[in-house]
């Protein structure tokens, strides 16, 4: 087997900042935009970029993520000598292997990567919403004769202190990396997307673990080492829509932005589709008592109430007299009658009983957790 570039999606995070939404699932399996889960974006980008061998590294509550990914066929990634492999911790004759950081997770999966003898390894995060052509980034990587290319996003100088910032020379070569600099010298924020030449990265990791200098994290350990050793390390600027949805606030915001008709994510673009697993669901049913505006609705929804500026996911039920406003409702949630939901995220399989109220604000998004039950339903045939 021989694959030019293999992708490793780091989907291991527990996503504690997403609180109740990730108590029983890994962050990349969190629903987004009515029809998707967060990891669909990275997987679809891989598929559309012709990267058809993908390892998904996870160690936290993998059941739903596994059931979602299956063999990768939903993203066109189930080919012979390629495909999606979910990589979990395992025991070897040297002992049990947990992942201690981004770079350590790659180190622990060297045997998997070597199965495909890739020339390049693309490192991705499983919790970003964006559309990006990794093939174009690889072409850039080759043109620069780089050993490492880092995907960067130009941000405003105001925001720059919140990010890892890459300072580059006039050829885009990275000369310095600063984690959350108080006085940033550049506005190029690391997206956590890397293309490495596999051979030198593998050597670096193996050397580091055979000595004391363990490289656990790409940002903290590996990039500084590359700069130190004067490895050709370049920045590749991405200019499209990109959102880290690692917090309740940013997840809510990204869903609200998704509702904008001119959202730069352009989900309808048939030349860069976002794929997802498809369930067998009936079409959406909008009853005689419904009102739906400025909203996204999908298969399996049953809407008898009012939905305004909100995202409804698959199989959501909204009872009569209820009002859903500026909210994101996750799959299989059931909202009773005369419920008010405003500035909220309602988790998968949650149940909001009749007359319930879930009201947040711009600064404090209300959250109902996975399978959480609030109040009770009236008897109803």
């Amino acid at each position, binding site marked *: 087997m021989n694959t030019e570039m293999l992708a490793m999606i780091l989907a291991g995070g527990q996503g504690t900042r997403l609180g109740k939404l990730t108590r029983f699932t890994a962050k990349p399996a969190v629903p987004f935009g009515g029809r998707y889960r967060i990891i669909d974006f990275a997987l679809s980008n891989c598929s559309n970029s012709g990267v058809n061998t993908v390892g998904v590294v996870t160690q936290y509550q993998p059941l739903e993520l596994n059931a979602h990914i299956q063999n990768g066929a939903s993203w066109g990634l189930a080919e012979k000598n390629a495909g999606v492999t979910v990589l979990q911790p395992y025991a070897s004759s040297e002992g049990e292997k947990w992942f201690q950081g981004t770079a350590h997770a790659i180190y622990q999966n060297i045997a998997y990567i070597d199965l495909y003898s890739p020339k390049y390894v693309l490192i991705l995060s499983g919790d970003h919403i964006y559309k990006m052509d990794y093939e174009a980034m690889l072409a850039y990587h080759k043109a620069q004769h780089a050993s490492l290319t880092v995907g960067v996003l130009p941000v405003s100088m105001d925001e720059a202190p919140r990010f890892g910032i890459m300072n580059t020379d006039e050829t885009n070569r990275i000369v310095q990396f600063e984690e959350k600099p108080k006085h940033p010298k550049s506005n190029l924020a690391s997206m956590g997307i890397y293309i490495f030449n596999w051979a030198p990265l593998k050597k670096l990791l193996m050397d580091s673990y055979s000595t004391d200098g363990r490289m656990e994290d790409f940002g903290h350990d590996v990039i500084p080492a590359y700069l130190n050793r004067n490895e050709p390390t370049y920045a590749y600027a991405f200019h499209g829509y990109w959102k880290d949805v690692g917090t309740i606030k940013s997840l809510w915001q990204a869903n609200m932005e998704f509702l904008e008709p001119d959202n730069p994510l352009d989900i309808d673009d048939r030349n860069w589709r976002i794929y997802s697993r*498809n369930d067998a669901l009936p079409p959406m049913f909008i009853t005689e008592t419904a009102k739906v505006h400025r909203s996204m609705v*999908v298969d399996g929804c049953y809407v008898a109430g009012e939905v305004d500026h909100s995202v409804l996911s698959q199989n959501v039920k909204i009872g009569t007299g209820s009002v859903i406003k500026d909210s994101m409702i996750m799959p299989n949630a059931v909202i009773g009658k005369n419920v008010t939901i405003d500035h909220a995220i309602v988790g998968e399989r949650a149940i909001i009983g009749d007359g319930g109220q879930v009201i947040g604000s711009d600064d404090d998004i209300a959250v109902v957790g996975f399978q959480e039950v609030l109040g009770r339903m009236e008897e109803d045939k």
Partner: protein
Amino acid sequence: MRESEMCAVIDLNEPSQDLAPLTNERPVGTMPFAGRYRLVDFPLSAISNAGIRTAGIFLPRSSRSVEDHIRSGQAWDLDTITGGVFSFPYVATRDYSDPVNIHRYYDNYLTFLIKSKSRYVFITGARNVSNLDVNALLQFHQASPNPISAVYRSVPTTMADPDQEGFVLGEDNEVIGFAPSHELPERTSDHTKPISMQMYLTRTDYLIELLSRVQNSGEFTRLPQLLHEEIVSAQANAFEYTGYCATIHDIQSYYQANMDMLNEENFHALLFSQRAIFTKNKNEAPTYFAPEADVLGSLLGTGGQIEGQVRHSVLFRNVTVEDGAHVADSIVMQSSHIGKNAMLSCVIMDKGCIVGPNVKLQGTSSAPIVLAKGTTILDQAAAEEVLQS
């Protein structure tokens, strides 16, 4: 091995002339239904839900749409190593005075049945839209005395189409004859008549023997006719199906069955029961309801863009309803586009139709206007032209 307990034969050679122009390029079996499905999804899902993994599809003349839809059969778990979809080419126009063709006709069925290694075979078409529990039918059959079972439904006399074929039932609920509905006696208990759903279950070896016998006789009788004769001579056990069912045989019945799905009870009975209806999957974005969207009492597929008013209608995927447009009591198939301020009432738009701004099309529920696939009507003059042709 459970997989080979039953196999299924789906015969898509069903009368379609009264459904033109919707059946110009497709058989009844691939007519779009209820915003998301094709009619053949119902028999395919019924057999899938019953654990059947081997199906023979007897193709109609326009087989492209069938093959495009079913493909490997994966959506219905019909692509496993122990089963599969086996399709048989259209044969109806061959010359059946030629003994070679007669022989081949039966060979197609026999080859499939023998290869299936199944004990029972379920035979169905696609035009009787229903959600049948095939395992319940099997259990009924196993507990019944006669070698073949036939499915019927009880239709209130007032609702029965006079030409639809029904069963004359004997004392033990066995089939002793056929008659068009209007000739059948009403069952006094509930004022209904038993109408055939053209679905049968029998032992595979029994059907193999029947087909071999006819094949060797040199006579030519098509399978539907053969079963027709057989269920009377063998006094088939009559199995009553009690769920929602519609027989799609003309534009009016097709229109009505779609409108039926806007009734919540029918919708749940057919589409949201324990036995899910599976269909070919499509990756579409969610449907967007614009600020001025005004949708009531309707079914919608994904990928839509709704800016206008929609009332009591069935919209398939990727439909656009522009600002100010009104769509009422209509069926709008995939990728159709309705322009600004257009007014549609009782219209059936096949796939990829375009209705321009301000165009008015007003049918009636007993005679809906039908736009054939890909029809483009840019202004009212064009509309008049289409309506008169």
